[in-house]
């Protein structure tokens, strides 16, 4: 079920996560029309950088109409293309979400619901008319009409519509498995559900809104970056506008078209054009991993997390303990212990019991025996704390050491002298000892081991290099917890954890200024999920948990918390890197445009034309064309995100400064020259 190391996204396209190619034809077509409809000034005004480009293109358009010429028209066309390319980038990012939303909408087809009235009678109503507090009845084959909680019955439910996981899950009233989601299908039995969602606010409605980006709010860092980009835009307006009087003083004249071109080239259009696409794509990447973030803020916070609270079971260890060895006491051998242990576990259907049978078979060749009519299985109870089998007069038991010892003494048996030492040793190693007795005779101990997930240690090592501390949360005693913590390589652990202790730990970390992320599914996790900066609720969990958290993991895989952190970081890195790239580009553009700007008055400035561009007009046009094309060229990067590798901050920074900073200085020199050569070759100039 939980597979950290095989990326679920790439090879398992399912459910919401319809993995589509980056340039899916359908999305592409929608995006093309979207880039035109987004020319609406009200849409453009939200993005100060592109708004300036739009206004600039209108100015050159008027100029082109008043004084037509190839140059003026070329510039005008390329400026309009710059705006369209930016719109296209955003539409592409949105389109991917829209495609997913459509799939969801089809699912939320007009279902009929059997509402139970107060008098106990049932009536048929449309699902859309259900309101919070209504009770509905669902039987095998019905689609559950809305989100709710089972108040009666048990059923197997197909949740593939949401999670993509085809194996049905069991949902029952009471406890932590009582939540059902609208749009999922009951496969067997009959349940009564109390609706917990308001009309139009069901889980699927929220998902649709989310993937469509309908009410997408800018995240804090995005707002801060938008402000910085606005500053970088505002500062270049006087730079360019004052050039006119400066030139006039020098006896030169500068055309408005060239000034607008200069302005557009200087303001950070690359990042301005791609900023919202990066944000939408970041959310989309989460959705593709079957994680629904309730706010973009949470995704960003994930990148800032410094402490990860991870539940031991299911996240760090495989869900169940497994028999690892048989340890005989004096006077007995391993074979005997294995034989009796297997006998005791024959009817034990718990995973632990099964693992004992399997270990005995694999290591000692003891064939699995069949239960015979004379065999009586003794169930585990909280009072006896033992289970076992009665075969004829033989009573075989396995259980906690203290219970088995008491039971043996009651029968007049003696306790082997080395038993306590063995039990102690097993506990200290982080395993669970089960003592095995045959009648009054204690044979030995079964060691049940928590199995740490493969590869998890390396993952924690990565977290550590990124400066993230991992804390294991477990109900085990401190001894056991310490041993597992060591084996898994977590930085710290919280043993015998209660919901209160968990909450106190989160608060303590937050008071130290750290951001905390955790996963949870139970109702008693809800307060901690709400307190944590990033709370990921499992989809299998209770409604309370899902409402308290700010993300829901549809696969209910707690290990995914680590992926979420990486996605959060990648989102910020992509923005930062493209901002750097965008600003670094300005240097080459200056060297292209400044000599061209004053070419007539001051031919001496030709010395600055280090790219040896053909003519002033080809130089300006090449810079503008480069500026527009670079947006298109970077769309895949914006949608996919900058490649992220777990490393410490210095290494990540060095890498990105080289690629996007130094690269950002060099690349435009090369490509502006290439575009200039092409323009000349086409005899455009």
């Amino acid at each position, binding site marked *: 079920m939980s597979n950290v190391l095989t990326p679920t996204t790439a090879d398992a396209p399912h459910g919401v996560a319809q993995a589509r190619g980056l340039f899916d034809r359908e999305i592409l077509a929608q995006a093309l029309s979207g880039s035109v409809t987004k020319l609406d000034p009200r849409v453009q005004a939200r993005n100060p950088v592109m708004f300036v480009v739009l206004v600039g293109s209108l100015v050159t358009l008027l100029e082109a109409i008043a004084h037509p010429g190839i140059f003026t028209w070329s510039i005008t066309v390329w400026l309009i293309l710059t705006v369209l390319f930016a719109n296209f980038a955003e539409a592409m990012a949105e389109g991917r979400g829209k495609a997913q939303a459509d799939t969801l909408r089809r699912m939320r087809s007009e279902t009929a619901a059997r509402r139970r009235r107060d008098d106990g009678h049932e009536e048929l109503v449309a699902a859309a008319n259900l309101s919070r507090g209504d009770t509905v009845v669902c039987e095998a084959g019905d689609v559950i009409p809305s989100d709710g909680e089972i108040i009666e019955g048990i059923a197997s439910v197909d949740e593939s519509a949401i999670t993509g996981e085809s194996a049905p899950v069991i949902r029952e009233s009471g406890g932590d498995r009582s939540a059902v989601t609208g749009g999922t299908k009951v496969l067997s039995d009959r349940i009564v559900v109390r609706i917990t969602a308001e009309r139009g606010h069901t889980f699927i409605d929220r998902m649709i809104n989310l993937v469509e980006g309908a009410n997408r709010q800018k995240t*804090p*860092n995005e*707002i*801060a*970056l938008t*402000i*910085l980009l606005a*500053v970088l835009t*505002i*500062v*270049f307006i*006087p*730079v*360019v506008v*004052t*050039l006119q*009087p*400066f*030139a*006039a*003083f*020098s006896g030169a004249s500068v055309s408005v078209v060239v000034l607008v071109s200069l302005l557009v080239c200087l303001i950070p259009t690359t990042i301005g054009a791609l900023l919202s696409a990066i944000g939408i794509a970041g959310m989309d990447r989460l959705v593709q991993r079957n994680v629904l973030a309730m706010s973009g803020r949470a995704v*960003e916070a994930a*990148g800032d997390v*410094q402490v990860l609270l991870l539940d031991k079971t299911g996240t760090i260890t495989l869900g169940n303990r497994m028999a690892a060895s048989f340890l005989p006491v004096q006077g007995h051998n391993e074979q005997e212990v294995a034989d009796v242990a297997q006998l005791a576990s024959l009817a034990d259907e718990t995973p632990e019991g099964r693992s004992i049978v399997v270990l005995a078979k694999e290591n000692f060749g003891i064939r699995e025996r069949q239960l015979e009519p004379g065999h009586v299985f003794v169930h585990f109870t909280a009072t006896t704390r033992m289970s076992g089998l009665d075969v004829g007069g033989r009573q075989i038991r396995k259980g906690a050491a203290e219970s088995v010892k008491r039971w043996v003494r009651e029968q007049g048996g003696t306790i082997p002298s080395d038993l306590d030492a063995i039990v102690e040793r097993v506990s200290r190693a982080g395993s669970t000892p089960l003592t095995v007795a045959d009648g009054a005779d204690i044979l030995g101990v079964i060691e049940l081991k928590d199995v740490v997930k493969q590869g998890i240690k390396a993952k924690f090592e990565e977290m*550590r290099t990124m*400066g*993230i501390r991992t804390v294991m949360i477990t109900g085990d005693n401190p001894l056991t917890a310490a041993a597992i913590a060591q084996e898994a390589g977590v930085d710290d652990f919280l043993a015998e954890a209660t919901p209160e202790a968990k909450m106190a730990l989160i608060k303590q970390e937050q008071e*130290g*200024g*750290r951001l905390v992320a955790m996963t949870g599914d139970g109702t008693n996790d809800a307060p901690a999920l709400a307190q944590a900066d990033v709370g990921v609720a499992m989809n299998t969990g209770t409604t309370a948990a899902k409402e308290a958290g700010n993300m829901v993991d549809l696969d209910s895989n707690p290990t995914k918390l680590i992926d979420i952190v990486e996605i*959060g*970081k990648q989102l*910020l*890195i992509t*923005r*930062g*890197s493209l*901002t*750097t790239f965008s*600003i670094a580009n300005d240097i080459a553009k*200056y060297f292209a445009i*400044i000599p061209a*700007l*004053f070419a007539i008055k*001051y031919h*001496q*400035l030709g*010395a*600055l034309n280090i790219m040896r561009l053909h003519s002033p007009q080809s130089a300006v046009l090449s810079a503008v064309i480069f500026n527009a094309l670079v947006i298109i060229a970077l769309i895949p990067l914006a949608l996919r995100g900058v490649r*992220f590798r777990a490393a*410490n*901050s*210095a290494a*990540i*920074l060095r890498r*990105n*400064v080289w690629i*996007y*900073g130094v690269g950002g200085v060099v690349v435009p020199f090369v490509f502006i020259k290439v575009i200039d050569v092409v323009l000349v070759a086409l005899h455009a100039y």
Partner: protein
Amino acid sequence: MAFFLTLLALVVSLGLTWRYLGSYMAAVFDGRVHFLGFVERPIYRLLGTSPEQEQTWKRYGAAVIVFSGVSLLFTYAILRLQGWLPLNPQHLGNVGSALSFNTAASFVTNTNWQNYGGETTMSYFSQIGALMVQQFVTPAVGIVVAVVLVRGFARRSSSTVGNFWVDLTRCLFYVLLPIAFAFGIVFVGEGAVMTLAGTATVHDVLNQVTQTIARGPIGFMESIKQLGTNGGGFLNANSATPFENPTGLTNFLSIYLLLSIPFALTYTFGKMVGSVRHGVALLSVMALLFGVWVGFTSFAEHQNNPAVAAAGVHSTVGNTEGKEVRFGDTSSALFAVSSTMTSTGSADAAYDSFTPIGGMGLMTGMMLGEVTPGGTGSGLYTLLIYALIAVFIGGLMIGRTPEYLGKKIQSREVKLAGLAALVMPVVVLIVTAIAVSVAAGRAGPLNAGPHGFSEILYGLTSQGNNNGSAFGGLTGNTPFYNIIGAVDMLLGRFAIMVPVLALGGALAAKNVVPESLGTFRTDNAMFVGLTIGVILIIGGLTFFPAVSLGPIVEQLSHGRFF
């Protein structure tokens, strides 16, 4: 060789000053220095305040504005009324209104742009009571504003940032007055004039001419002129005259004094935020850029002036036009770069006569926003603004909400830092555009073409950056230039100070995020490089077109006169 020995002596003496003056200032502003308590206490009683009464950034900022506003009125009033005031042996008349406004704005903003010749315009009372008083208090205001920003980083979840009146008093009595007094004695000892007697009249019998020689209380004004990065000299010729700058030692001390506090404040910063490494990082940013500019300009001045060379004259001692023979080409370049990159603006040579690219070195030194090392206090706080922008971009590049010294840099901080960074280029470019567009402005420069443009651009860049050095050639004492210059200076000072104070308040209110391996390091070479990048990009990209129309064209014209 002598030049390199001078550099070596400068590096050693500044290094020691950085370490010890830096930690001393940290102690002063942390309230750990009390030896003048008997002076402090009565002042606080008079002002009705005490070190325990801390202010929010708004109250602190209001105090800065009120204090500076009163200073402006006070200075203006003295200049306007000087004809009726004492200590006026030459019976100089009242100063005109436009010039008084420009001069008052100039001295209250720590600019010391002088549209007048001191000896022929200002009475001793005006020089001492109006101008020299401002030369003491304005660097103090700059330093305490920087201290507020530093406290923003040093404090945690604090609603207050200090007490303006206490900080100002401590800065004056513990830092500026004692150092200025000590060095004043050295200047006077070396021969700088110090008298309240009027001008001396000398009759040259041989040549049958009578000369009037200006004198005055010059020596003690000299030390605070340099120490406070003021730059406004008593005499028109500033540090080029032997009365202000009599010997090689005073010339060296001038350079040393004007660089000392701006550099030392980085140590103070490191000490106060609890990480000297962070102070070293800022020092490196300042020193690297400063070093490059000194090298560049010294090299340029060591060459022949292209205009002179074009006339067929070849000098073996560099470009000596407009330079004091006592100091020579490279040393004058060192003084000039030190003075223009610290917002001091004093001069021991005529900057107008530098080679075009040498002059560009001085002009661009100011265009970087006066952060290398910049003015007293203003250099540090402006540099921190650029550092925050570098941190923001760099922080995003590692995938974290950017933080500097544990303080998260979010929208409010970016907004304030962006605003503060925006002010200078926008103001300077706009006032320059106005000046070149109107007839009154076009009448200013002596030369035509690119050199004339350079003269206007230099003058308004100098005032907008609160530097005060003059390129020469620009006739500034006209109503137009007096008023536009005053606006330029006031905006360049206070439109930056207010967001800086707000930033200090916003940062002080924040809690600290503990450092981890995932934190963007702000005390290493990468950070230094990024910050230098931001300074060069903001300064360079905003002024490149303008500079290309001035000095660059001139240099590329190979000695054509304009």
